[in-house]
Protein backbone atom coordinates (compact mmCIF):
# COMPACT_ATOMS: atom_id res chain seq x y z
CA UNK A 1 0.00 0.00 0.00
CA UNK A 2 1.31 3.42 -0.91
CA UNK A 3 1.36 6.08 1.76
CA UNK A 4 -2.03 7.79 1.85
CA UNK A 5 -2.07 11.48 2.69
CA UNK A 6 -5.16 13.12 4.12
CA UNK A 7 -5.68 16.76 5.07
CA UNK A 8 -8.44 17.98 7.35
CA UNK A 9 -9.06 21.64 8.17
CA UNK A 10 -10.11 22.19 11.80
CA UNK A 11 -12.63 24.99 12.15
CA UNK A 12 -11.88 27.18 15.12
CA UNK A 13 -15.36 28.56 15.47
CA UNK A 14 -17.34 26.24 17.62
CA UNK A 15 -16.37 23.76 20.30
CA UNK A 16 -19.78 22.13 20.07
CA UNK A 17 -19.05 21.13 16.47
CA UNK A 18 -15.52 19.87 17.21
CA UNK A 19 -14.82 16.31 16.17
CA UNK A 20 -15.71 16.58 12.50
CA UNK A 21 -12.14 16.05 11.29
CA UNK A 22 -11.60 13.13 13.67
CA UNK A 23 -14.89 11.52 12.66
CA UNK A 24 -13.93 11.72 8.98
CA UNK A 25 -10.47 10.31 9.65
CA UNK A 26 -11.93 7.45 11.66
CA UNK A 27 -14.27 6.53 8.82
CA UNK A 28 -11.39 6.58 6.33
CA UNK A 29 -9.17 4.40 8.55
CA UNK A 30 -12.04 1.92 8.88
CA UNK A 31 -12.47 1.82 5.10
CA UNK A 32 -8.74 1.14 4.76
CA UNK A 33 -9.28 -1.92 6.95
CA UNK A 34 -6.80 -1.00 9.70
CA UNK A 35 -6.97 -2.90 13.04
CA UNK A 36 -9.70 -1.55 15.39
CA UNK A 37 -7.28 -0.83 18.25
CA UNK A 38 -5.04 1.46 16.22
CA UNK A 39 -8.10 3.21 14.74
CA UNK A 40 -9.42 3.80 18.26
CA UNK A 41 -6.12 5.17 19.51
CA UNK A 42 -5.60 7.39 16.45
CA UNK A 43 -9.16 8.72 16.71
CA UNK A 44 -8.79 9.70 20.36
CA UNK A 45 -5.40 11.33 19.67
CA UNK A 46 -6.80 13.34 16.78
CA UNK A 47 -9.96 14.35 18.65
CA UNK A 48 -7.90 15.60 21.59
CA UNK A 49 -5.76 17.57 19.15
CA UNK A 50 -8.83 18.98 17.50
CA UNK A 51 -10.32 20.06 20.82
CA UNK A 52 -7.06 21.75 21.81
CA UNK A 53 -6.92 23.61 18.50
CA UNK A 54 -10.48 24.89 18.89
CA UNK A 55 -10.06 25.89 22.54
CA UNK A 56 -6.63 27.49 22.29
CA UNK A 57 -5.72 28.31 18.69
CA UNK A 58 -8.89 29.17 16.73
CA UNK A 59 -8.47 26.07 14.61
CA UNK A 60 -5.73 24.82 12.34
CA UNK A 61 -5.01 21.87 10.11
CA UNK A 62 -4.52 18.14 10.61
CA UNK A 63 -2.42 16.14 8.17
CA UNK A 64 -2.67 12.38 8.39
CA UNK A 65 -0.34 9.97 6.63
CA UNK A 66 -1.16 6.30 6.57
CA UNK A 67 1.79 4.15 5.57
CA UNK A 68 2.46 0.44 5.59
CA UNK A 69 3.34 0.21 9.24
CA UNK A 70 2.63 3.62 10.77
CA UNK A 71 0.04 6.38 10.99
CA UNK A 72 1.39 9.91 11.40
CA UNK A 73 -0.95 12.66 12.58
CA UNK A 74 0.47 16.17 12.38
CA UNK A 75 -1.65 18.97 13.81
CA UNK A 76 -0.53 22.50 12.98
CA UNK A 77 -1.90 25.76 14.33
CA UNK A 78 -0.88 29.40 14.44
CA UNK A 79 -2.20 29.92 17.95
CA UNK A 80 -0.51 31.37 21.03
CA UNK A 81 1.95 28.50 21.55
CA UNK A 82 2.57 26.60 24.79
CA UNK A 83 4.82 28.51 27.22
CA UNK A 84 5.69 25.49 29.38
CA UNK A 85 5.30 22.12 27.65
CA UNK A 86 6.27 20.08 30.73
CA UNK A 87 3.52 21.77 32.72
CA UNK A 88 1.01 21.29 29.88
CA UNK A 89 1.82 17.56 29.81
CA UNK A 90 0.81 17.13 33.47
CA UNK A 91 -2.56 15.47 34.07
CA UNK A 92 -4.99 18.01 35.48
CA UNK A 93 -3.20 21.14 34.25
CA UNK A 94 -5.42 23.21 31.97
CA UNK A 95 -5.74 26.80 30.80
CA UNK A 96 -9.16 26.18 29.19
CA UNK A 97 -11.82 28.75 29.96
CA UNK A 98 -15.25 28.36 31.57
CA UNK A 99 -17.13 27.69 28.30
CA UNK A 100 -14.95 24.67 27.51
CA UNK A 101 -15.28 23.42 31.07
CA UNK A 102 -19.06 23.65 31.01
CA UNK A 103 -19.04 21.33 28.00
CA UNK A 104 -16.91 18.77 29.83
CA UNK A 105 -13.51 19.79 28.47
CA UNK A 106 -10.59 21.40 30.26
CA UNK A 107 -9.81 18.41 32.48
CA UNK A 108 -6.13 18.75 31.70
CA UNK A 109 -6.07 15.33 30.06
CA UNK A 110 -5.74 16.22 26.36
CA UNK A 111 -1.98 16.08 25.89
CA UNK A 112 -1.62 13.24 28.47
CA UNK A 113 -4.16 11.22 26.45
CA UNK A 114 -2.19 11.83 23.26
CA UNK A 115 0.92 10.58 25.02
CA UNK A 116 -1.01 7.59 26.39
CA UNK A 117 -2.39 6.47 23.04
CA UNK A 118 0.29 7.48 20.52
CA UNK A 119 3.50 5.49 20.25
CA UNK A 120 5.43 8.73 19.76
CA UNK A 121 4.45 12.31 20.57
CA UNK A 122 6.46 15.38 19.59
CA UNK A 123 5.49 18.97 20.34
CA UNK A 124 7.14 21.90 18.57
CA UNK A 125 5.85 25.19 19.88
CA UNK A 126 6.77 28.85 19.95
CA UNK A 127 4.95 31.42 22.02
CA UNK A 128 3.14 33.85 19.73
CA UNK A 129 3.76 31.71 16.61
CA UNK A 130 1.94 28.43 17.05
CA UNK A 131 2.24 24.74 17.75
CA UNK A 132 2.84 21.57 15.75
CA UNK A 133 1.87 18.34 17.49
CA UNK A 134 3.07 15.18 15.75
CA UNK A 135 1.80 11.76 16.79
CA UNK A 136 2.94 8.43 15.38
CA UNK A 137 1.08 5.19 15.87
CA UNK A 138 2.48 1.85 14.79
CA UNK A 139 0.16 -0.38 12.82
CA UNK A 140 0.49 -3.95 14.10
CA UNK A 141 1.04 -6.41 11.27
Amino acid at each position, binding site marked *: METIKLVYPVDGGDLI*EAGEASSKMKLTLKRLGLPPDVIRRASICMYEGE*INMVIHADGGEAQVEVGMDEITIRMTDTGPGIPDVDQAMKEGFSTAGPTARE*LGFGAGMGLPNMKRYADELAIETEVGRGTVVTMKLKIPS
Partner: protein
Amino acid sequence: MTVKALSDALSLTVFTLPDPDRAVSGGYSGDLLSWVMGRAGENHAWLTIMSNQNVAAVALMADLACVILTEGVTPDEDLLRRAGEQMINLLGTASPTFEAALALGEQLK
Protein backbone atom coordinates in the same frame (compact mmCIF):
# COMPACT_ATOMS: atom_id res chain seq x y z
CA MET B 1 -24.67 -8.99 26.66
CA THR B 2 -26.04 -6.73 23.95
CA VAL B 3 -27.00 -3.10 24.44
CA LYS B 4 -30.61 -4.00 23.64
CA ALA B 5 -30.66 -6.75 26.29
CA LEU B 6 -29.09 -4.37 28.83
CA SER B 7 -31.60 -1.66 27.99
CA ASP B 8 -34.50 -4.11 28.45
CA ALA B 9 -33.10 -5.56 31.69
CA LEU B 10 -32.65 -2.14 33.30
CA SER B 11 -35.79 -0.63 31.72
CA LEU B 12 -33.73 2.19 30.27
CA THR B 13 -35.21 5.03 28.26
CA VAL B 14 -34.28 4.62 24.60
CA PHE B 15 -33.37 7.96 23.02
CA THR B 16 -31.83 6.30 19.98
CA LEU B 17 -30.66 2.73 19.46
CA PRO B 18 -29.06 2.46 16.01
CA ASP B 19 -26.73 -0.43 16.95
CA PRO B 20 -28.77 -2.65 19.34
CA ASP B 21 -26.71 -5.83 18.92
CA ARG B 22 -23.47 -4.20 20.02
CA ALA B 23 -21.85 -6.12 22.90
CA VAL B 24 -21.29 -4.44 26.29
CA SER B 25 -18.16 -5.64 28.09
CA GLY B 26 -17.90 -3.22 31.03
CA GLY B 27 -18.78 0.22 32.26
CA TYR B 28 -17.32 3.62 33.05
CA SER B 29 -18.75 6.63 34.83
CA GLY B 30 -17.54 10.21 34.41
CA ASP B 31 -18.39 13.65 33.10
CA LEU B 32 -14.97 15.01 32.12
CA LEU B 33 -14.73 14.02 28.47
CA SER B 34 -10.97 13.58 28.20
CA TRP B 35 -10.95 11.58 31.41
CA VAL B 36 -13.48 9.23 29.82
CA MET B 37 -11.39 8.88 26.65
CA GLY B 38 -8.33 8.15 28.75
CA ARG B 39 -9.93 5.57 31.03
CA ALA B 40 -13.04 3.98 29.52
CA GLY B 41 -12.49 0.74 27.62
CA GLU B 42 -13.69 -0.32 24.20
CA ASN B 43 -17.31 -1.56 24.30
CA HIS B 44 -17.96 -0.07 27.73
CA ALA B 45 -21.31 1.46 28.70
CA TRP B 46 -20.67 5.08 29.71
CA LEU B 47 -22.71 6.65 32.50
CA THR B 48 -22.75 10.44 32.42
CA ILE B 49 -24.81 13.54 33.08
CA MET B 50 -23.25 15.45 30.15
CA SER B 51 -25.82 15.92 27.40
CA ASN B 52 -24.23 18.05 24.65
CA GLN B 53 -23.22 16.66 21.27
CA ASN B 54 -19.57 16.22 22.19
CA VAL B 55 -20.80 13.16 24.13
CA ALA B 56 -21.53 11.45 20.79
CA ALA B 57 -18.06 12.35 19.49
CA VAL B 58 -16.39 10.88 22.59
CA ALA B 59 -18.45 7.68 22.33
CA LEU B 60 -17.51 7.40 18.66
CA MET B 61 -13.76 7.99 19.12
CA ALA B 62 -13.48 5.67 22.12
CA ASP B 63 -15.60 2.88 20.58
CA LEU B 64 -18.04 2.83 23.50
CA ALA B 65 -21.00 0.43 23.34
CA CYS B 66 -23.56 2.95 24.55
CA VAL B 67 -24.09 6.14 26.51
CA ILE B 68 -26.47 6.04 29.48
CA LEU B 69 -27.58 9.49 30.66
CA THR B 70 -28.26 9.19 34.37
CA GLU B 71 -30.16 11.25 36.96
CA GLY B 72 -33.04 11.86 34.53
CA VAL B 73 -30.87 13.93 32.18
CA THR B 74 -32.18 14.11 28.62
CA PRO B 75 -30.07 14.73 25.50
CA ASP B 76 -30.18 18.10 23.80
CA GLU B 77 -31.44 18.11 20.21
CA ASP B 78 -27.96 18.21 18.67
CA LEU B 79 -26.75 15.24 20.73
CA LEU B 80 -29.78 13.20 19.70
CA ARG B 81 -29.20 14.04 16.03
CA ARG B 82 -25.48 13.34 16.10
CA ALA B 83 -25.92 10.07 18.01
CA GLY B 84 -28.31 8.85 15.33
CA GLU B 85 -25.97 9.92 12.52
CA GLN B 86 -22.92 8.33 14.09
CA MET B 87 -24.54 5.05 15.17
CA ILE B 88 -24.19 5.82 18.88
CA ASN B 89 -26.63 4.04 21.21
CA LEU B 90 -28.07 6.67 23.54
CA LEU B 91 -30.06 5.56 26.58
CA GLY B 92 -31.24 7.11 29.81
CA THR B 93 -32.36 6.41 33.35
CA ALA B 94 -33.89 8.40 36.19
CA SER B 95 -31.58 6.57 38.62
CA PRO B 96 -28.65 8.36 40.25
CA THR B 97 -25.30 7.51 38.66
CA PHE B 98 -24.19 5.32 41.58
CA GLU B 99 -27.39 3.25 41.51
CA ALA B 100 -27.20 2.94 37.73
CA ALA B 101 -23.60 1.71 37.98
CA LEU B 102 -24.61 -0.89 40.57
CA ALA B 103 -27.43 -2.13 38.33
CA LEU B 104 -25.10 -2.25 35.33
CA GLY B 105 -22.56 -4.19 37.37
CA GLU B 106 -25.20 -6.74 38.36
CA GLN B 107 -26.09 -7.33 34.73
CA LEU B 108 -22.47 -7.77 33.68
CA LYS B 109 -21.61 -10.28 36.42
